[in-house]
């Protein structure tokens, strides 16, 4: 077990060990939806919510179902199934009871069912042997970190689209990857600050 308190872990997951910028997980929705800040915000909020909940859910399932039954090798399948079922359930609930929220956030939910960052967070907390509280902090922190990254890139892309005249080959995903790369370089500078594994 790692000796790092939940608050520090939360901070680390957002800034020094950002799941998107240091592990490069969850890139597909990131490239597709980061055209503007508004939709990035919606998708980001969905990721925060799902990642926090599934981190806790998967922690519980792993230690109270898979470990006692000696089925830990099935964790990949089960985690994915649980994430998918949870996302479905949340989508249905939001669509029914919070229509306004559904149009902002709900339509992005199916997109993140198979987001590898979500599964990644659940797997990291097993590999790094976090406790339940640490898992909660790590899940929430990773989600917020992912959201900050997509908002930052969305803002930069908005500005670039308005002011710069780009060669065609550089538009869209190409430029996004370059921006993300530069941002990742900046974030890697923090990487030694906090030991989280």
């Amino acid at each position, binding site marked *: 077990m790692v000796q790092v308190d939940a608050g520090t872990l939360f901070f680390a997951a957002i800034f020094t060990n950002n799941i998107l910028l240091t592990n490069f997980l969850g890139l597909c929705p990131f490239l597709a939806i980061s055209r503007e800040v508004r939709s990035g915000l919606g998708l980001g909020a969905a990721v925060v919510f799902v990642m926090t909940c599934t981190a806790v859910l998967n922690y519980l399932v792993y230690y109270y179902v898979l470990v006692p039954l000696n*089925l830990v090798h099935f964790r990949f399948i089960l985690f994915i199934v*649980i994430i998918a079922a949870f996302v*479905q359930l949340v989508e249905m609930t939001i669509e*029914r009871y919070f229509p306004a929220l559904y149009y902002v956030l709900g339509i992005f939910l199916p997109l993140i069912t198979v987001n590898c960052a979500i599964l990644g967070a659940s797997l990291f907390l097993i590999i790094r042997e976090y406790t339940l509280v640490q898992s909660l902090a790590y899940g929430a922190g990773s989600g917020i970190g992912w959201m900050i990254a997509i908002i930052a890139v969305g803002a930069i892309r908005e500005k670039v689209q308005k002011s710069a005249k780009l060669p065609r080959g550089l538009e869209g995903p190409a430029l996004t990857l370059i921006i993300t790369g530069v941002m990742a370089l900046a974030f890697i500078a923090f990487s030694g600050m906090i030991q989280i594994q």
Partner: protein
Amino acid sequence: MFELLLSLLIMSGIAALLALLLEIADSYLADYGERRIVVNEQKDMVVEGGKPLLFTLMEQGIFIPSACGGKGTCSYCKVQVHEGGGPVLPTETPYLSPEELKTDVRLSCQVKVKNDLKIEIPEELFLVKEYRVRVERMEDLTPAIRGLHLRVIEPEEGITFKAGQYVQLEVPKYKRTSGPEYRAYSISSDADRHDRLELVITRVPEGAVTTYVHEYLKEGEELRATGPYGKFYLRESDRDILLIATGSGMAPIKSILHQLANHGIQRKATFFFGARTKSDLYYVDQLEAWEKAIPEFRFIPVLSRLTEEDRWQGEKGRVTDLIGKHLPDNPAVDVYICGAPPMVESCVALLLKKGLPEERVFYDKFE
């Protein structure tokens, strides 16, 4: 061994539990009760809410055209939703122009019936009906194309369509699909025969409907179809007619030729049919018979991939290039084009460049 079975059992159990949970949630959460839809301010219907508008209307006997089966990719199922549709979804915006957005146009497969709706659809869609058809005969026209001969058994008066229009054929659920699937196919038969429908269906790898037609469908089987749809049909005028097709795009052209032959229409008609090899040609006998029967009709097959053994005397190359060579500038013709999208697009571009006005070029892209 026992352990392996046990672990499999436990995993399946957990998965089944989650599925059950979702199923229960679905029946409680996705139940929107009864909703009212007013169509064109004249038709008023009470429907079960929660499903996409496209399918709800279908249950009510109003058939909006759709080629992709409600997956939000073909953009055929546009209707105007004036009230109750909610905001436009990101899944729709790529298919809607600024004018369409202003006039409340939506994709009916994406709009769910959650509130009472007020919608507007083109009047002619009220003429679209559902038919029960029986497969009388199937023939393999080429290695990849199958001809389907269907008899309309319900309703009794049969189908009334214009030569060139299409129907949507529905095939039942089978091994590869989770429910009935339907796709659009042009009618190749004679529009004067109301009791029969002929379709020409190219095999698409992994295609849900085409695979069924090519591998599972049996003679004598009953299917359902809706139609007729489409604005691609023979227009009246006294200009010459230029017909261009590739692959199964021959289907609506054949229907148009039936019209020319049946009604003794005295317009000069030329039909260019592009294919890769000799084995991709079909209906050649029928077309040659028409060359004799219709006074000024010519059938010109064009092959792009020739081998020595073919001993081909006819035209070679791509159909677009041939037309570019043969057609004078500002030609006095009406053009009907049907087939794969790249061919249709390059032909249309070429014809417009030759000075043909847009309203005399009719086309149907087979995606």
